């Protein structure tokens, strides 16, 4: 049989599609993607205003970190945002970008931290093997994964934990040095001076709390070394959930 033109064309299309599928599969790397949720916390007595907080993922995408509780000054040390959700599997984070100003010491911090890539990957793998993964909300049905928690303590100390069920692992602990704010770091509605920016960003911080903080409350605290008691606090809940089959 002699191939006619249209069949040659179809075969060319097939080849192009096969190449495209191989390329897309290897650039998407589905086997290196996981469901996870990220949030940030800060001690109540050391409020901060976040300018930027996000992960840089292995494929260069940006990973969103929920900072609502910190923005409302309702965050507590070691407590993650209560509604963990994940819309899609994503590559794991490799870098953490943080830019914030602290109310207590009036200092600006800005840095990009390298995360331990291999360690994070191992933690995800072992958490799935040991059934330590937690349930995350997804519009088409709950999914399993872990949660990242970025803790911003006083004096520029930063910690990152990975959490699941009966599982918490510290993956990064680092001290940032304060820097002079640059560029848009003092931009809020318009370009402001350092003092104006701090005043504007902490406008909604209750006066009673401001008074308390300014009078030196909790002055000698060292939050970075304060245990989070995450497992102790949730033990009872998980045991109940396991007993009733809500989680594995």
């Amino acid at each position, binding site marked *: *049989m*002699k*191939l*006619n*033109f*249209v*069949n040659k*064309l*179809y*075969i060319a*299309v*097939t080849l192009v*599609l*096969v190449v*495209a*599928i191989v390329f*897309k*599969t290897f650039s*998407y790397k*589905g086997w290196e*993607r996981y469901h996870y949720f990220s949030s940030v916390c800060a001690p109540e007595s050391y409020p901060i205003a976040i300018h930027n907080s996000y992960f840089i993922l292995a494929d260069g995408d940006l990973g969103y970190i929920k900072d609502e509780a910190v923005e409302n000054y309702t965050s507590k040390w070691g407590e993650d945002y209560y509604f963990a959700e994940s*819309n*899609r*599997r994503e590559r794991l984070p490799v870098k953490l970008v943080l830019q914030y100003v602290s109310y207590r010491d009036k200092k600006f911090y800005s840095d990009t931290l390298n995360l331990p890539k291999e360690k994070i990957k191992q933690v995800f793998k072992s958490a799935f093997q040991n059934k330590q993964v937690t349930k995350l909300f997804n*519009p088409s049905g709950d999914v399993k994964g872990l949660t990242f928690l970025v803790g911003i303590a006083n004096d520029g100390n930063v910690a990152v934990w990975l959490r699941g069920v009966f599982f918490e692992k510290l993956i990064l602990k680092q001290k940032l040095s304060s820097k002079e704010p640059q560029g848009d770091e003092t931009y809020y509605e318009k370009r402001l001076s350092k003092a104006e920016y701090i005043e504007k960003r902490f406008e909604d911080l209750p006066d009673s709390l401001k008074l308390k903080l300014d009078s030196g409350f909790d002055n000698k605290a060292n939050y970075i070394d304060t245990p989070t008691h995450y497992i102790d606090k949730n033990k009872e809940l998980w045991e109940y959930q396991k007993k009733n089959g809500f989680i594995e």
Partner: protein
Amino acid sequence: MENKELQLNKQKNSNLSILLIGVNLILLLIFANIGDSLDDELSVNYCYLSFGTTVLLGFYAFSYHGKGYRIAKWLFAASLIISALLIGLLLYSAGLAKAFQH
């Protein structure tokens, strides 16, 4: 005699074409579904699939002539209408999105 051979060749080529259309559509479906798609992206995937069908059927419909191949023209016409409707829908929703400005 030679005519018959030509007819047979055409028949074989046509069968191969139909097979290849099927294979290409399956590959297109696989390509579109790599990765976790959100709902809105899924509907765009169906548009690609519909356009793909139209183009592939179009080649077939304009390459094979004769009584036995007429059904391909009808299928092509149907897929053309469906694709046109989808394009219309996409343009309409893009227009709606454009009008939604804060």
